[in-house]
């Protein structure tokens, strides 16, 4: 349990005393300890380009008084280092008169096993799969000019020590397997990327030659793009496919519903609670409790058990996502959304697995209803300006729709929309909800955390497509 102090000059009692004494007059705070073991193995250009193993250990000490957060972190787990941090926190919160909130919910649920995925497959076996991927793709299509394939795996162990000496722990496995392929035909080059992952062993994802499916999907996307024409420019109807395109929900709605931006009133959504922000039939949840998913957590990085938070129910805005700090200041409760990239960063309210639930239309129906528009199947990434509400995302596989029929593939283009109004433009919600393949990383304030998204196919009546063809 107290493996963090094994090699240090600290006893558990010493640590508890320093934590309690530092947080004495504070409203909240904790000592967060983390040990991460990670690996990345990369095949590129026919060779194993890199094999890296990393082991990182450190603590982050946080004290909160009213709205003010003091934070100090270090790699050195020692009495001196911890006392230095404590002094640093106290100097920021000189006149603090808070009352420590000891309440923290408990859970017996676990959404993943205490495994170290790195050790569950030997390096030889991993190298073998990467070489198979390379050979398979190059043999399958003579237009393949470049193949990149990678494994990344991690085991992160955390412990949170609160003012009372109460300790909360979690062991989090995470893996990702990725394939990128570049094709060249008649002087034209295009790439296709696909990956899978989550909080299980590599083999849970790669069994039954599943890696071949990943290869084929990357190859398929690249092949489609080889024949793509310039994308249109202007406002039009957009049909989004199920699964990964839900990064639209993540960017357009998700970030704007994070507690911090709403407490600070800098989100375009801050005064819309209880109001209609989406078409009827649109329900969006953020769920940290789905078994072994990339965005799931047993407890968040403040120790709060995660939950399924209903953000929008049948078009009405119901809840924001909260960490402890923002919940306290907004008279709400933490939704188990307090997350940080690692011990070097402060906690922020973040998304976990953000999902739009199924409706009752078919994708066919949506496409048939469109005279002129685009059908977007796969995406690169997105970004949002939470204050103006404007968001973008980049298509990596899309087609034009003409008179209710899917036409030629179009080149990658950025789509732009307005977060608070885009969901009112949703005129059909599909019956085909699907999770993404487990590859998403969300960035906020310089911190990346693993997340998931899901949605059914949806029809958006009006969005601006940023192509070059007028």
């Amino acid at each position, binding site marked *: 349990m107290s493996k963090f102090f094994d090699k240090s000059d600290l006893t558990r009692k010493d640590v508890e005393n320093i934590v309690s004494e530092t947080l004495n007059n504070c409203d909240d705070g904790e000592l967060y300890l983390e040990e991460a073991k990670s690996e990345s193995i990369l095949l*590129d250009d026919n060779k194993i380009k890199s094999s890296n193993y990393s082991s990182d250990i450190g603590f982050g000490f946080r004290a909160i008084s009213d709205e003010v957060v003091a934070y100090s972190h270090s790699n050195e787990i020692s009495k001196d280092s911890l006392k230095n941090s404590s002094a640093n926190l106290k100097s920021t919160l000189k006149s603090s008169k808070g009352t420590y909130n000891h309440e923290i919910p408990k859970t017996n649920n676990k959404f993943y096993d205490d495994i170290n995925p790195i050790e569950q497959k030997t*390096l030889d076996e991993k190298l073998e799969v990467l070489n198979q991927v390379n050979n398979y793709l190059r043999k399958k299509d003579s237009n393949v000019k470049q193949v990149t394939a990678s494994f990344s795996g991690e085991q992160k162990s955390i412990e949170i020590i609160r003012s009372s000496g109460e300790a909360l722990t979690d062991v989090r496995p995470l893996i990702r397997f990725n394939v990128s392929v570049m094709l060249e035909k008649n002087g034209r*080059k295009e790439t296709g990327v696909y990956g899978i992952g989550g909080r299980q062993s590599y083999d849970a994802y790669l069994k039954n030659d599943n890696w071949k499916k990943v290869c084929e999907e990357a190859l398929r996307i690249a092949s489609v793009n080889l024949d793509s024409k310039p994308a249109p420019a202007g406002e039009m109807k957009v049909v989004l496919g199920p699964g990964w395109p839900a990064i639209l929900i993540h960017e357009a709605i998700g970030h704007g519903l994070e507690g911090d931006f709403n407490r600070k009133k800098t989100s375009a959504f801050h005064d819309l609670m209880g109001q209609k922000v989406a078409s009827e039939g649109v329900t969006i949840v953020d769920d940290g409790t789905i078994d072994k998913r990339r965005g799931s957590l047993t407890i968040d990085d403040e120790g709060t058990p995660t939950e399924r938070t209903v953000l929008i129910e049948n078009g009405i805005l119901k809840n924001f996502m909260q960490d402890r700090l923002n919940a306290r200041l907004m008279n709400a409760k933490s939704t188990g959304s307090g997350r940080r990239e690692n011990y070097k960063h*402060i906690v922020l309210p973040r998304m976990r697995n953000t999902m739009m639930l199924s409706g009752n239309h078919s994708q066919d129906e949506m496409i048939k209803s469109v005279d002129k528009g685009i059908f977007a199947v796969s995406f690169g990434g997105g970004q949002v300006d939470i204050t103006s509400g*404007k968001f973008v995302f980049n298509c990596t596989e899309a087609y034009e729709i003409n008179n209710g029929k899917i036409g030629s593939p179009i080149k990658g283009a950025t789509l*732009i929309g307005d977060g608070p109004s885009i969901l009112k433009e949703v005129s059909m919600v599909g019956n085909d909800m699907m999770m993404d393949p487990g590859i998403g990383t969300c960035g906020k304030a310089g911190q990346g955390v693993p997340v998931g998204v899901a949605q059914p196919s949806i029809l958006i009546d009006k969005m601006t497509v940023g192509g070059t063809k007028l």
Partner: protein
Amino acid sequence: MIKDQEYLKSKASYCLDLAKKLGATDASVTVGNSISESVNFRNKSLDESNRSDSLAISIETYIGNKKSSISSSNLLDKNLKILIEKCYETTKITPEDEFNSLPDKDILAKEIKNLNLYDNSHLDNDKKIDYLKELEQTASIDKKIINTESGFTENKSNFILANSDGFCNGYKSSSFSASCVAVAKDENSMERDYEFTSKCHLNDIIDPKNLGKIASEQTIKKLSPKKIESGKMSIIFDKRIAKGLLSSFASAISSSAIARGTSFLKDKIDHQIFSETINIIDKPDIVKGMGSQCFDSEGVKSDSLKLVDCGFLKDYLVDTYNGKKLNLKSNGRSGGSTNLYFENGNMNIEELLRIDNRSLYITETIGHGTNLVTGDYSVGATGFLVENGEFKYPVNEITIAGNFNEMFKNITLANDLEFRYSVNSPTIFIEGMTVAGK
């Protein structure tokens, strides 16, 4: 206090000795320490303080042409021993790669120029708070500003790079940065904008009053934006985003993208890719430069490069591994460009605004719509409509798109270059891009 050179050197030589003893034919180590202290303000009161003390070591071991690497933040000898043993064992079973090697000895940096990258000044948190108070005071004078957030960060770093060919060097550097983000609101919209300053030396940063004033003015100007019609338009890139086009150029000429064949600029050496008025320089030895370096991340000395001369591409950014693959010598650019910039153009900003009678002046782009394989470019944008040289009204919820091959050829530069970042550009004018709006 950050760890001194002696401590870092002792860790580096411990690792090199151990790797050699285990049987590694070559090894290289980077070990560094960085301490940063920051204070954040919001609406004129303290919001957050953050102190960060980070140690990091990364080790590469070679057995002939086999290579693997480890990294850690735990510098205890006992831990390093376990990791180096693991690294050595992994190297043994990693396949050969003929291009893996330490850099050639004759191009390693021999002298370390003093580029004045370290300022020993220390600003107490209380002094940082004074700076931010003054900053937010000016930032929030206008009633339309409803929220201000600002921050001050002081960072000091030290590192040593050592390899088994006898290279062992490093130096301290510092940075002092302040930023202000303002939110303004009127009856039609809520908008956000920012200003920031970052320098190696404390005395060189912008004064707080000015920083707050610029952030506030830039934000208020964006209120009540309109969406414009789709069409072909001339685009003007404000300096703070113009540098993004140069960064994309730098990624496209990195030797790794060229060696892998995944760049639209592959095989373009001695080809014209910009108009003949354009020169691009990468200069590592600018005194106090934000991207300055005495050697690259492999220890190779880096000289100034004229990457683009009168529109013609002259050089790639080459490291040891990809250089060998391409039959080129490393030019000390492992880790990318250093201080990269366009040389000034011939016209002033007023003249640039009048090149076309109707153009779009872009101050911010969002999204990752840059495809370096094809050169295709499509991003979300906000800015201002410019007619006959005058700013008319703010514009948002539009995209701008084109392809770098044509965009680069159509660049006209103003003569307002400043050195604020590691990548710097004068204001850029590009004709004939596509705007998607209404």
